[in-house]
């Protein structure tokens, strides 16, 4: 019964745990309950869930994309360099980021399909190359700032309360739901992830679908990198690298299977919320955690989360 509920509402559990964690934080430190803290949690959650959108698609299709972090950093650097704190340069920056993202996505997709090696290794090698390129481009120091107008579209408060980043969510979330649940491609991705051979026998161009998932993933992470540049105002090399693993964990915690074929975007958003709230709790001043203790706790909690959801089938059946 409990299992059934979890399968039908994969987002329920992460949201419940997030609420409990936040409640715990507030009990330990009552001052944590304020609008600024909530706003920052919402914004970070949105960023992580945008970045994880493509990762969800790739994982459902049976792949894995480790370039999310590198693409985000590279796109943030491009955005800051092109905008150079001047308004009216959104389109050139957007164009450059999209060209780069599509190129990296194509490279990811074609290489995983053609090399036939585990996507983990292929995308990681590509992500390394992208990270090195950032250093060559910037020589290790930040190149400029995002334009003031663009920063305002991300960080200002609508009606004084709602962070304006939610406006992007109003576009990106429905887009992702459309791709995953309503479009032809979405159905094909589920089928390919479930059983590539059966999908091919049913006339689906498996390679084409897989490559497309990688391209979409890179485009999502590229755009999130732009938003990230505005959120952070400037861009450093490798500054979003942790999003590679964080997006993966958010997606897994949201009930998507590593083996492919199963998963929802709602779950991913809930998983992203959980990751952000967890980080927020661990950095609460009242808990007085030293950085090493924080690391140990983060590791333990991640293990616990994995135990809750992602255990493999027993060999003895």
């Amino acid at each position, binding site marked *: 019964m409990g299992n059934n509920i979890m399968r039908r509402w994969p987002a329920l559990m992460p949201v419940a745990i997030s609420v409990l964690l936040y409640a715990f934080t507030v009990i330990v430190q009552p001052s944590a309950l304020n609008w600024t803290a909530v706003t920052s949690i919402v914004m970070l959650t949105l960023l992580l869930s945008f970045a994880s959108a493509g990762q969800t698609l790739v994982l459902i299709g049976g792949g894995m994309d480790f370039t999310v972090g590198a693409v985000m950093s590279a796109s943030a650097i491009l955005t800051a360099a092109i905008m150079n704190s001047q308004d009216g340069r959104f389109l050139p920056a957007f164009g450059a980021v999209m060209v780069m993202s599509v190129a990296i996505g194509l490279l990811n997709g074609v*290489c995983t399909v*053609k*090399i*036939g*090696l*585990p996507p*983990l*290794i*292929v995308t*990681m*090698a*590509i992500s*390394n*190359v992208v990270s*090195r*390129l950032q*250093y*060559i481009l910037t*020589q*290790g120091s930040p190149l400029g700032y995002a334009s003031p107008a663009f920063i305002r579209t991300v960080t200002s408060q609508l009606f004084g309360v709602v962070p304006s980043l939610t406006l992007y969510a109003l576009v990106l979330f429905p887009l992702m739901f459309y791709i995953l649940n309503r479009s032809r491609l979405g159905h094909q991705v589920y089928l390919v992830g479930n059983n590539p051979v059966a999908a091919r026998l049913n006339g689906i161009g498996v390679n084409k679908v897989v490559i497309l998932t990688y391209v979409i993933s890179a485009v999502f992470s590229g755009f999130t990198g732009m938003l990230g540049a505005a959120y952070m105002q400037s861009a450093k090399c490798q500054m979003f690298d942790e999003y590679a*693993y964080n997006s*993966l*964990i958010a997606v*897994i915690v949201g009930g998507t299977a*590593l083996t492919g074929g199963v998963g929802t975007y709602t779950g991913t958003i809930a998983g992203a919320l959980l990751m952000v709230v967890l980080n927020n709790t661990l950095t609460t001043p009242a808990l007085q955690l030293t*950085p*090493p*203790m*924080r*690391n*140990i*706790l*983060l*590791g*333990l909690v*991640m*293990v616990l989360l*994995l*135990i809750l959801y*992602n*255990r*493999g*089938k*027993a*060999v*003895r059946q």
Partner: protein
Amino acid sequence: MSQRLQQGFSQFRKNPAFAGFVLFAFTILLNAVIQGPGSFFGVRRLNTLIYTSLPFLLVVMAQSVLLLSGTMDISVGVQVALVNVVTIMTMQEWGLSFILACGLGIGAAIIASLVCWLLVSVLRLPALLASFALTYAIRGVNVLIMSVAQGKVPREFYRPYQSAIFDMVPASILALVLALLVWAYVRRTRFGTNIYAVGANPRNAFAAGINPAKVQLQAFMLKGLFVGMAGICLTLVTASGNPTQAEDYGIRSLAACIIGGLSFGGWGSMACGVFGGSFLILTQNAVEFSFRRLGVLIPGFTASTYWQNFVSDIIIFLGLLMTMVTAKGQREALRINLQNSVMFKRRAAHGK
């Protein structure tokens, strides 16, 4: 004669280690060409290259054992640092002798491996994510034990390690030979056979009367031993302690194994890992040397380490592309062999 040579070569081409060997031979040649054979194969330079890269090579061997048994562990990097930290701190704080401290260091690596086994084989968590979570925990433990880089190793221990016996053979290579001997022995035991069965398909192995969890336990223990040796070697290279070193060994060792021709479970051999690891080391060596040489040849040419890293990562990526040609052919050969043997048996059964 030539026919036999040809036959031998075509046999070797079907060997899983062929892809890794080609890359390894290529980088040896590359190094010899750009540095000059006399200089590259000179005892002093070769000795330095071997003793500094030995820790990584041992980690790659550890990772290979896990890959053969169908799991992996990306926290091996922080585990190497754990061995280093435990060795130095027990020596410094408790006044233990270096040998005893090394024993404790290896013990720490084996305990860390057991924890990973518990998560991966007993609790059946996805190996990649479980060991990633473990990376955080072990990193925290490392810093708890040793907050900042400190400590030193007695001279009488690191000098011999970094020297060459009779000015001919690097002493450090003994550690590699020891590890390879351990593996050669283990490979001949029942465990050495079972590890392939479990790696290829735990369910089928279980049906055949093998306990997958037990085999993976043995694999993790062996991996802990190798990681412990790697940590000791690293301690002897740097002759001090540092809680944040060697963190990238985890991912890089995985890449080395895959480039060498191992896949996730049941395919490949230890030679794949060793060749793949050597490929990464030699690539970096060649790139570093040629950038230094370019700086001397062309006045005013200052290439930052950024370019060096970029070029070596490009070469590693090309190495992955290479496996498309080499490794695929081998897997094809394996498949055809299997098919033939099955067909043959069927034909025999039907009396044709």
